[in-house]
């Protein structure tokens, strides 16, 4: 595929490694926000060959979807009148007492879709079923989910509703920077979030916290170049927003997608699993669309959420601990039987470490 082989070129990768080595005069700490980037870094061993400390960030929507929301999803999915529709990565994420896959095995009607448009198609094809779409994700995913809702409205689908729990990246970066023990000196911003939102949102963060932020892609060369650009800024005492991923990201992002977000959602406070409440860090359905809000449509009583006490996912997600610091890692917590969300998702840090065979 075009520009995949080129951006995985091992000769250029080595050259970039050498350039980072030649540029860094100290071991800077850089956070990659996005879990997709964590996976490339860990799989390729990039974080182990560079003279920088990579801190793995909270950018895995599956990992940070709050336990309370997940428990609510499980309660709705268990209803006999509901066809529950989800992205595949959510299926094995542990709730307080079960997960979607176990519910499905016990006969609940749970479907996996690749695109939210498929959820709308399911509602059209099954008019006698209540189709509920579990709309999670960052700014990259939210426009697609917004369009599913607008399509359902346009087609007058009364049997479609949405359990929406979106999270936003800039408030999470601010929360990381505000933490008293914050060690992050520079950020790789998530390229595809910026493809939608642009990067103007990051300029006040870079200025206020004097932290370089480099919009970065997902291939090995992208990550290496993003790290190099961050290290150069740190060495030169600059704190700017730069764009490594110029082939895919424009300063203003994708306006039509932003307009759909503004139309369908409202900014809200959000609890991040393992991390806690972050002000104005999420999107919920706007009041105009309350009739499509699954939380209001289905009364599932009070939700009492309880995490597994062994899991240190919160510290892993904030970059203060590595998965290998967790007593459960690889022993009682594995991708086959996960205790916490970061061991499940393809973007979770614990799963990335486990897949790469990392040990303490």
């Amino acid at each position: 595929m075009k520009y995949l082989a080129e951006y995985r070129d091992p000769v250029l990768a080595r050259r970039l490694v050498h350039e980072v080595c030649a540029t860094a005069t100290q071991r800077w700490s850089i956070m990659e926000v996005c879990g997709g980037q964590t996976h490339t870094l860990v799989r390729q061993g990039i974080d182990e060959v560079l003279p920088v400390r990579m801190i793995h960030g909270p950018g895995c929507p599956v990992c940070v979807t709050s336990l309370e929301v997940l428990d609510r999803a499980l309660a709705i999915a268990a209803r006999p009148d509901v066809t529950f529709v989800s992205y595949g990565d959510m299926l094995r994420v542990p709730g307080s007492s079960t997960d979607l896959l176990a519910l499905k095995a016990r006969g609940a009607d749970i479907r996996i879709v690749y695109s939210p448009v498929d959820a709308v198609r399911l509602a059209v094809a099954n008019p006698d079923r209540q189709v509920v779409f579990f709309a999670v994700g960052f700014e990259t995913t939210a426009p697609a989910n917004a369009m599913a809702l607008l399509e359902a409205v346009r087609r007058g689908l009364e049997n479609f509703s949405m359990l929406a729990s979106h999270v936003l990246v800039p408030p999470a970066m601010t929360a990381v920077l505000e933490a008293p023990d914050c060690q992050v000196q520079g950020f790789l911003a998530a390229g595809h979030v910026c493809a939608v939102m642009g990067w103007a949102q990051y300029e006040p963060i870079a200025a206020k916290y004097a932290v370089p932020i480099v919009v970065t892609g997902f291939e090995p060369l992208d990550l290496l170049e993003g790290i190099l650009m961050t290290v150069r800024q740190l060495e030169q005492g600059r704190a700017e927003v730069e764009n490594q991923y110029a082939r895919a990201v424009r300063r203003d992002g994708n306006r039509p997608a932003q307009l759909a977000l503004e139309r369908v959602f409202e900014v809200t406070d959000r609890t991040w699993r393992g991390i806690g409440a972050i002000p104005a860090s999420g999107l919920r359905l706007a009041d105009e669309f309350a009739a499509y809000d699954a939380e209001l449509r289905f009364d599932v009583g009070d939700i009492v959420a309880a995490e597994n006490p062994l899991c240190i996912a919160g510290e892993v997600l904030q970059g203060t601990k590595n998965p290998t610091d967790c007593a459960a890692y690889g022993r009682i917590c594995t991708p086959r039987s996960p205790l916490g969300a970061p061991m499940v998702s393809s973007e979770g840090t614990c799963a990335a470490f486990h897949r790469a065979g990392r040990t303490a």
Partner: protein
Amino acid sequence: MCLGVPGRVLAIDDEGGLPMAQVDFGGIRRDVCLVYLPETQVGSYVIVHVGFAITEVDEAEAQRTLEVLRTMDGDALAAELGEPAPGSGVATTPSPGLP
């Protein structure tokens, strides 16, 4: 689920009012919604996330980035590291762990 994948637009059509495209991902074909990239032309490369094209790949920028990397100053590096720069035509010791 957060990943975006680049693919080439093969054909554009309409599904009940939604602009859709057939996109080729290195041999695998998928229907992709173009509602957020309405200007897309057949033959261009788009980055697709959960069935929606979110941005077009700018081929000139892609080439430019690669050119910058290819012309990175290998000699200065060699002096710094005491070994010939990779790609300079002289055998090098590979860095561990990289592809």
